[in-house]
């Protein structure tokens, strides 16, 4: 049963796409993945509009001081296990806007990122690749969720003991 659930996690990732201040270049490429040419539903991937249903958070664009709260909020609303994919030059590092006064930087300044997709704009193929890499991490995280809270906190407990 547990192994089937773990297999299902990899076979049915629902992703939510958050536009964090992108120029829409990467957004169009993310949506292109849904079209008949790439058809990510082959892998069971659905683009949902609700963070409470999502497993993968795909973030495009730079994070700025206004929308970092919204990004954090969307991330917090997703139930575990969850992974984050940062898409495009802006999403990974801040891109050409990195030095701008209103920009915080890449997505990883605010929330933990599991896969980075480079490119400006990122190609649909590389976005799908990034999602597949994130799926590997999702399976690992899924096992940790099954372990339960005490096993998950084991490392912390050991750390405190050995201090």
């Amino acid at each position: 049963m547990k192994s089937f659930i773990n297999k299902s996690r990899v076979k049915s990732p629902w992703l939510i796409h958050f536009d964090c201040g992108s120029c829409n270049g990467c957004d169009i490429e993310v949506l292109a993945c849904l079209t008949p040419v790439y058809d990510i539903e082959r892998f069971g991937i659905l683009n949902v509009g609700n963070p409470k249903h999502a497993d993968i958070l795909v973030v495009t664009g730079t994070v700025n001081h206004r929308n970092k709260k919204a990004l954090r909020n969307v991330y917090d609303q997703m139930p575990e296990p969850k992974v984050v994919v940062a898409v495009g030059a802006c999403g990974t590092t801040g891109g050409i806007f990195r030095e701008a006064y209103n920009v915080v930087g890449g997505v990883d300044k605010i929330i933990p990122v599991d896969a980075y997709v480079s490119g400006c704009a990122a190609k649909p193929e590389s976005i799908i690749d990034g999602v597949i890499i994130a799926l590997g991490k999702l399976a690992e995280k899924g096992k940790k969720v099954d372990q339960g809270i005490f096993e998950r906190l084991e490392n912390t407990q050991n750390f405190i003991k050995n201090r």
Partner: protein
Amino acid sequence: MSMNEVIAVLAAIFVAPIIGGIVAGIDRKVTARLQGRYGPPLLQPFYDVFKLFGKEKMIVNYWQIICAYMYLAADVLTVVLLALQSDLLLIFFVLAVGGVFLVIGALAAESPYSQIGAQRELIQMLTYEPLLILVFVGIYLETGSFKISDIIANYHEPLLLSLPLLFVVLGYALVIKLKKSPFDIATSHHAHQEIVKGVLTEYSGPYLAIIEISHWYETVFILGLCALFWHTNFIWMAVLLVVTYFGEVLVDNICARLTWRWMLPHAWTGGLIMSFANYFWIYEKIK
């Protein structure tokens, strides 16, 4: 309770969700093919549901839990009653109770998306429930009984031949009940349609999985209801079911969403006119 009844109940409880899940898988595959895509594997609905069971339990309040379970219980009960060849009206009321619990669960959360989805689900129920009653009354006028076992025992020709217009009305009601376009107003199975996710917005993880399983039971119930229209011959029954379900998927794919202001008057006027035309036909035949 005889042995046959026990077997029928067990089949309704354990086999129905498997059939419903596979039908959902075929539905998604056919939908993808109609849109020129390859589509997900056949077992994708099962992967989805098991994944949802493995997710963290995240609730807004405890009402959601009881509402999800009550919705499941009501839908299981409708399929069990159908398998026991019980009274059509009783089945109808149990189905209505299930729908109400789905709405209550959505209304229990304060999210505006969930609230508006719940209101729309109520309008949808208001639209399809009178139509279902009209169909059941038509079946009663034709066969002289609301009880499915009596209909099967005493009525020896296909109901479709004497109730063709009421079958169209039933189709109308089922498009709404199956949450398909053009009437997927409260929520939709397709990505990017309803405001966030309509009535299902605040259900997540295992509770969403429970609602998905209830939806499989509902699909089986609906197919069973259609099967009643050709109960005399198994092959024609299967043909009728396949044609009806394919018709629903086709309509789902070629229609844009309509608003409730369109749905309510058109479903009611069309449904009433067709129902009464069919009643007159039955009346003339009896006279």
